[in-house]
C-alpha cells in the first residue's frame, strides 16, 4: 500500500534508477524467524489473515497439518509441516513460508509496470496493486516462489511485512501473535545480533549444523531464519543458494533493453540511409517520366 511515511528507495520499471533518498537515517528493519523455537501453532498465520482482512476458502483435509497447502492471494504466510527423518526417526521441519523481502528483489527486477513493486527505505518490499497489470513477471522473477496472482482481479499479492503497521511504529501482526518468540522484529542489526546469539545457543545444545539463512545471492533478506538443521535448508523449503539468476537479470537488464531499442532504431536508420543513397527500385521504363502513373495505386 502506498504510504507517504515510507520512503520508496527502489521502484519497478523506472528509466532512471535513483529514487529520492534525502532522508538517509532510516534504519532497515528485519524479521527473525527462529525455527528452533517454532511450535507450529499457526497463530502468525491467523494473525496475518486477521490484520490484513484475508479469508482463505475453507478447504479439505489433505493428510497434513499444512493448511492451506500453499501460499495464495488470501494466505500471505503459511505454516509448512515438512515431514522428514533425523537420525532415523520422524521429524517435523516446521517452516513459516512467506516473502523474504530481499535487498535485491527478483520481483522488482522483473516487473514491467512502473511502481507496481517498490522497496522502502526500511527494506520492506511491497506490491502496489493499483499499479499492477497482472502479467506475473514477479512470480517468474522470484527465487522463492512467493507472489500469487488473484484471478478475480488480476493483481499480485504477498506478505507486506505489515508495512502499514511498521510505518506507525508497530511490529508486524505475525510477530505480535507469536507465543514462543520464534518471531522477533526490530532493526536489521539487532536481529542479526540476536540470530548470532541464538545460533551459539543451538550449537551448544548439540545442533552443530544450525545455521543462519540470509542468502547473499539476493543481497540478503529482511526476513531471515535460524535453521536448527542448517545443512538441510531445502527440506524446510528454502533453496540452497538462491539468486535472481542470469536469465532474469539479462531479460530485464538495461543492456537487453538498449540492444532491443538499438536494433529497432538501427532498422529505421538503415532504411532511411539506404533510400537516401539508392532511391526506390523502379521498373526501368517508368523511371524516365512515366513513373508517377506506376507508383500510384
Amino acid at each position, binding site marked *: 500500500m502506498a504510504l507517504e511515511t515510507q520512503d520508496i528507495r527502489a521502484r519497478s520499471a523506472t*528509466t532512471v534508477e535513483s529514487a529520492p533518498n534525502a532522508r538517509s537515517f532510516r534504519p532497515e528493519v528485519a524479521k527473525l524467524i527462529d525455527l528452533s523455537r517454532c511450535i507450529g501453532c499457526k497463530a502468525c498465520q491467523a494473525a496475518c489473515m486477521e490484520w490484513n482482512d484475508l479469508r482463505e476458502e475453507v478447504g479439505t483435509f489433505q493428510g497434513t497439518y499444512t493448511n492451506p497447502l500453499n501460499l495464495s492471494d488470501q494466505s500471505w504466510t503459511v505454516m509448512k509441516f515438512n515431514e522428514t527423518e533425523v537420525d532415523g526417526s520422524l521429524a517435523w521441519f516446521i517452516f513459516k513460508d512467506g516473502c523474504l523481502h530481499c535487498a535485491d528483489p527478483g520481483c522488482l527486477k522483473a516487473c*514491467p509496470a512502473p511502481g507496481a513493486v517498490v522497496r522502502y527505505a526500511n527494506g520492506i518490499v511491497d506490491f502496489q496493486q493499483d499499479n499492477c497489470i497482472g502479467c*506475473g513477471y514477479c512470480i*517468474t522473477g522470484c527465487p522463492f516462489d512467493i507472489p500469487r496472482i488473484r484471478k478475480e482481479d488480476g493483481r499480485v499479492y504477498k506478505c507486506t511485512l505489515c508495512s502499514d503497521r511498521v510505518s506507525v511504529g508497530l511490529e508486524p501482526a505475525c510477530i505480535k501473535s507469536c507465543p514462543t518468540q520464534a518471531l522477533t522484529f526490530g532493526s536489521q542489526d539487532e536481529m542479526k545480533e540476536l540470530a548470532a546469539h541464538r545460533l551459539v545457543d543451538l550449537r551448544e545444545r548439540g545442533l552443530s549444523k544450525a545455521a543462519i539463512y540470509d542468502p547473499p545471492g539476493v543481497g540478503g533478506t529482511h526476513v531471515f531464519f535460524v535453521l536448527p538443521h542448517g545443512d538441510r535448508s531445502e527440506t524446510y523449503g528454502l533453496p540452497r543458494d538462491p539468486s535472481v539468476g542470469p536469465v532474469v537479470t539479462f531479460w530485464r537488464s538495461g543492456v537487453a533493453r538498449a540492444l532491443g531499442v538499438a536494433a*529497432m532504431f538501427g*532498422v529505421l536508420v538503415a*532504411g532511411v540511409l539506404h*533510400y537516401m543513397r539508392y532511391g526506390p527500385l523502379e*521498373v526501368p521504363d517508368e523511371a524516365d517520366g512515366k513513373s508517377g502513373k506506376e*507508383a500510384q495505386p
Partner: protein
Amino acid sequence: MKRDEDVVLPDGKILRHDNSERIVHWLIAIAFLFLFFSGLALFSPFFFWTSAIFGGGQFMRVLHPFAGVLLVLLFYPYAWKIRKDNQWTPADAKWVEHSVAYMKKKVEFSDTGKYNAGQKLMYWSMVPIIAILFLTGITMWQPWFANAFPAPLRRVTSLLHAVSAFVMFIGIGIHWYAAYWTRGSIRAMVRGTVTKAWARFHHPAWFRQITGGKDR
C-alpha cells in the same frame, strides 16, 4: 503452381494477390502492430506509455495474448496457402549471393518466381518465429496458463519470447522497407494488381508462367 489469382485481367493488369489474401495480410499486419506496441510496453519502461493506447496496462496485458492467438490463426493458413511459391530453389541461392548488389540496384534476376529469395527468407523466418512466440507466450499467459509451468522454465521462455519478438520486428521492419523501396509492391498488396512491366521486371519467371512462356 499457377493458381486462379495469377491471371492477366481484361485491363492488362496482373492479379497478384486475390481479395482473401490481401484481407488476411492486412489483418496480420494489424495484429502485428497491436502485439508490437503492447509488447514494447512490457519490454521496457521507456515504452510503457504505449500501454495508454490499449486503455492502460491491465487491459493491455489482457488483450496481448488474445491478439497473439489471432495472429497465429491468421498467419498459418495464409502461410499454408502461399507455401508452394515459397519453396527454396537454386535460383534463390544465387539471389542471396548477389543480394548486396541487388540492394545497390546493380543486378537483375531473370529467374525470380512469384516471390524472390528475400521474400522467401522473410516467409521462412516468420514460420518458426511466430510458432516460438506462440508457444513461449502460452507459458507466460496469466492467470490462465502460466502458473502451470515451473518458474525456471518461464524465465527461459520469457527471455526467448523477448528475443523472438525482436527478430520478428527486425524481419517486419525489413519487409516494410523492402515493400516501400520496391515501387508497386504496396499497390500489389492494397489493390491486388501489378502491371505487366512490373511483373516482368521483378518476377520474370512468375510472369512467364502466367503468360504461358512469353516474355512480353
